């Protein structure tokens, strides 16, 4: 981190808060709407704050969403962990170990991402049906990995380019194996990038709707996003559930990011000491 140019760091905080408030202003509508009745939401009188606070929207939303929290959490955490597990070594090998076929892997990964999810999902459904993993959490995790792994590969590849390879070369000369070097040298230095990618690999399945929609029909196994989607029924939009539920769905993810972002800061300091 840079030591602040201005005398008081609080000046930055003020500017930061103002910028945040401006950028997040549309969320105000969500917040105030979540505390209104449906009727007031659409009344012709534009009011800045609900006439009476309807807390039932929130309590109902919590009750409805709570059972699905575990599913979302498990899927997101597992997807993130597995993605890192599979992709970190591969990204390192592609960038620094110059394995043959790295161009093909990278191009293939990228091209796979260019297919719209809706078209991607049909053959995936067919494959998973035959493997009998439709309507299972491992199936959904694998499905989510089809978009987190390419993302992770590209981003980790970019972050790894900043890595000083001489450190590994020195270790190799001393007799360490490739994997040893990877675990004891590469990982600690690039931890910032790894954590960032891990965070996004967590957030992407957390907010995913299309894959969950196609691969899970068991109501008990549905993640939060799917339950929220039910607010958009064929015969009416359940605004009270949608608005309160949206904020509730975002909340655990925000907490996770706050916790994980502390790592980024501390991770950087560790790396900078080299």
């Amino acid at each position: 981190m840079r030591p602040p140019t201005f005398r008081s760091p609080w000046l930055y905080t003020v500017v930061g808060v103002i910028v945040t408030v401006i950028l997040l202003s549309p969320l105000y509508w969500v917040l105030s709407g979540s505390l209104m009745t449906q009727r007031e939401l659409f009344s012709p009188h534009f009011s800045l704050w609900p006439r009476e606070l309807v807390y039932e929207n929130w309590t109902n939303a919590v009750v409805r969403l709570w059972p699905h929290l575990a599913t979302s959490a498990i899927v997101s955490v597992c997807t993130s962990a597995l993605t890192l597990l599979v992709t970190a070594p591969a990204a390192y090998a592609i960038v620094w170990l110059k394995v043959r076929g790295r161009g093909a892997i990278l191009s293939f990964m990228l091209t796979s991402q260019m297919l719209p999810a809706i078209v991607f999902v049909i053959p995936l459904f067919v494959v998973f049906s035959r493997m009998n993993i439709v309507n299972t959490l491992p199936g959904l995790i694998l499905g989510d990995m089809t978009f987190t792994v390419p993302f992770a590969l590209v981003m980790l590849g970019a972050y790894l380019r900043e890595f000083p390879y001489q450190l590994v070369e020195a270790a190799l000369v001393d007799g360490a194996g490739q994997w040893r070097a990877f675990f004891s040298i590469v990982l600690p230095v690039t931890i910032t990038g790894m954590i960032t990618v891990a965070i996004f690999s967590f957030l992407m399945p957390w907010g995913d709707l299309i894959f969950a929609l196609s691969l899970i029909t068991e109501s008990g196994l549905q993640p939060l996003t799917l339950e929220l989607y039910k607010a958009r029924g064929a015969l009416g939009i359940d605004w009270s559930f949608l608005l309160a539920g949206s904020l509730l769905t975002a909340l655990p993810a925000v907490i996770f990011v706050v916790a994980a972002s502390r790592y980024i800061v501390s991770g950087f300091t560790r790396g900078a000491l080299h």
Partner: protein
Amino acid sequence: MKQLEATRTRVSLVPPVEPRPLPHRKAAWWRALAPYSFILPIVVFTLLLLAYPMLYSLTLSFRDATVDTFVSGDMPFNGFANYQQTLSTGTFWQALVNTIIFTFCSILFQFTIGFLLALFFQNRFPLKNVLIALLLVPWIAPVLTAAYTFKGLFNEVGPVNQLAHWFGIPGLPWLALPGFALAGTIVANIWIGFPFNFILLYSGICGIPQEIYEAARIDGASYWRRVSYITLPILKPVTVAVLMLGTIYTVKVFDLVWIMTGGGPANTSHLLSTYAYQVGFSLLNFGQAAAIATVIVLLILSLNLFQLLLQRK
């Protein structure tokens, strides 16, 4: 007594540690192969889960796959018929142009806002982590909510028009006018996408050692000079990656536009993705939808081609 036996057991169960390195021939062979063990899991993953859907989609685009044929599995090949039909529909070309405009404007603003924020947050100040997490909310919040939120904001009697009245500008039915509908979706997309750019660029800038900046500052370089001569060049791989991924994700945006305008009014705000959905899921012509998807892939490939070349260097 027991402890001694236990130690002996432990010692005998563990294979003896090899004090000397392996014979030269074996080591070289093993060392040459080791890097490939790094990529083994990802190659398996790619072949099983990514290759099949891509091939399936490609072959589907050359088949007549509609309601009648899809279920029975017949789906006879019909050559380029799907592509011909797609390219001869006016809506397709409108969607193509819309997609290019949508992508370009979205990325431009998302990246700029994200980059400026990434620079700003390099400073150490109280509540920094909380603000960062809060600024992620537009990206974390379900797209469903963002879409309805902006739809409500752009309503003819909604907040945006109310604000405009304050300033004396006449309100417009934003989402009901052909050109403006697309603009409305672009604004919503910028709002959703800037956190993605922000955090990834922020992490990238974090990794640049402070000493370089110190040296430059001692030499008398101003802030923006430091940014353009140090930050931007070192950040190039990350920038390229973020722009590339951003382009891909933006071209694929679907839920947002579908909910806000449904591609309307009169098909004027269709993106390729929403058009593909309409063809595939409303008209149940999966073959043509796959053809449109292939066109999307080709479009992104051409948009990204020079970026790929940059990264190879």
